[in-house]
């Protein structure tokens, strides 16, 4: 009962902070309270005396209060909050939540990591300290499922439809602005320019095969080819990632 009322109030809180830096600053002061409600609803510590195991099994805990969305909205376009007010253990907590999702690529927690690296999106200033922290959390050994998903992008031959483009964009965000440290961390996990180019090649072949209505490859100009694949968001994500990797390479040399 109260959980539903609380959800509605939390939804109001999300709208209250959305895109308003002063409101974001006001609410992020209460991060500890927001963190208490991350994930699903918590079961009571003590049950009523007449409560049987069957009753306990019936109590649902999902969905939670959705305070994750409030935290994410507090970070959006707010560089100061991203730089100063987010502790590492919050990222780890979000990492655990993301790891528990069947498809981490589509979960909302992923956005927090992206905002931590690039509070104002691609093409704006990155936060180098956060980039290292985010990548460190993403590649940590206790988030096995997440690790497998990231490895699948570059080290397996999965189909284009299953490509987690948001994860690729997140990796791109971690090396944005020529962050050599994080690029080296990725390199140590065999996520390099070579692996990306190889994956792009595989993906490109798949995409071109799937474009049944296109004329023969011989009759197509370069522009047509680019046009044919430009809509493919998975490929685009890899292009962005490669561009960032090349950006780091330019900085290095």
């Amino acid at each position, binding site marked *: 009962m109260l959980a*539903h009322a609380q*959800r509605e*109030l939390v939804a109001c809180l999300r*709208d*209250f902070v959305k895109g308003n830096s002063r409101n974001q600053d006001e609410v992020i002061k209460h991060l500890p309270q927001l963190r208490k409600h991350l994930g699903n609803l918590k079961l009571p510590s003590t049950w009523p005396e007449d409560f049987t195991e069957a009753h306990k099994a019936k109590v*649902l805990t999902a969905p939670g209060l959705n305070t994750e969305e409030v935290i994410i909205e507090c970070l959006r376009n707010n560089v100061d909050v991203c730089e100063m007010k987010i502790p590492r253990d919050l990222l780890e907590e979000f990492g655990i939540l993301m790891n528990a999702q069947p498809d981490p690529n589509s979960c909302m927690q992923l956005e927090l990591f992206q905002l931590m690296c690039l509070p104002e999106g691609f093409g704006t200033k990155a936060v180098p300290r956060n980039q290292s922290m985010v990548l460190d959390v993403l590649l940590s050994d206790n988030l096995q499922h997440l690790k497998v998903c990231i490895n699948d992008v570059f080290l397996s031959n999965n189909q284009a439809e299953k490509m987690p483009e948001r994860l690729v964009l997140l990796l791109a965000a971690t090396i944005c602005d020529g962050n050599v440290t994080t690029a080296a961390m990725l390199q140590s996990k065999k996520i390099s320019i070579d692996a990306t180019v190889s994956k792009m090649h595989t993906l490109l072949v798949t995409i071109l095969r799937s474009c049944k209505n296109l004329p023969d490859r011989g009759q197509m100009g370069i522009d047509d080819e680019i046009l044919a694949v430009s809509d493919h968001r998975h490929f685009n994500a890899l292009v962005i990632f490669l561009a960032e990797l090349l950006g780091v390479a330019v900085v290095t040399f």
Partner: protein
Amino acid sequence: MFKSSDGKALDLTVLANNLPVDVILLDCLCYQDDALFAAALELLERTYSQRKKLLHALSEVTLLETEAVPVFGNVGVMSSELNFLLFLVRSSGVWGVCSRVAGPFQKDQYDLVLKTCDRISKYLYHSPLESRQRPKQRPSIASQMGSVASDVKKFWSKTRGNTSEPIDNPMTAMHLGSEVETSIDVDDIVSEPTPLHQNVMRSMNLQTTLITALTMDYNLSFKGSICSSEDKVNFHNFMLFKFCFILPYRKVSVSLLNLYEFFICLSDTKPGHACACTKGISGMLARLRQG
């Protein structure tokens, strides 16, 4: 507040006959006397932090051209509703549970919380009045009163009886008109929250209410409630489903809310049906997502 040069009479330099007060105070800081040091520092701090405090207080103010605001009608109504929401949030342990101490569950208060949340949400996503053409004639305050205002009035009349004793609620100071919901055009709804309205809400201290809401104990029904165990589970789970329907499919949520009665009926008649109904609702949810 002050007339002509009254204000100057309170100026520290004038009070000290134009002696260098700052130098004297700094000198006082050098003595090994804790009380003197504390008093001198306090006076220095008070003298030089006035502007900062004034600027801070001014930055908390949001000026409106008129008292009319969309959705709520006017600022007075909005303020009273938000204050009452804070009261409801703080008293959730009374109305949100069926217990020997608090009595039966009070659905009126629960509905009022949801209704106020809905109005806050509508207000945040409403285009500002300044950006649109103003009406030729300002509506009277009575016609601007929303249904929530009358709900608040009903609540107070219930809890206070017929006493004419004044209560500490701004709603009572106003003449409450007919239950006319403030109409909202579809064109007035914007895709992103309006910054001005967010600022107004901040000035109204909405953040305190919403943060306080996080301290509500949603497991309260498991602590001292006099409902049967089955009722506790059903009610808890129903609210989860209600939420599932409301968030992504706000438009269809109203009709789906009737599922609650259906769900309770089923679980009351045959225990196994509750589980079957759960699956049915899950299936329906999946179909809605697809379609």
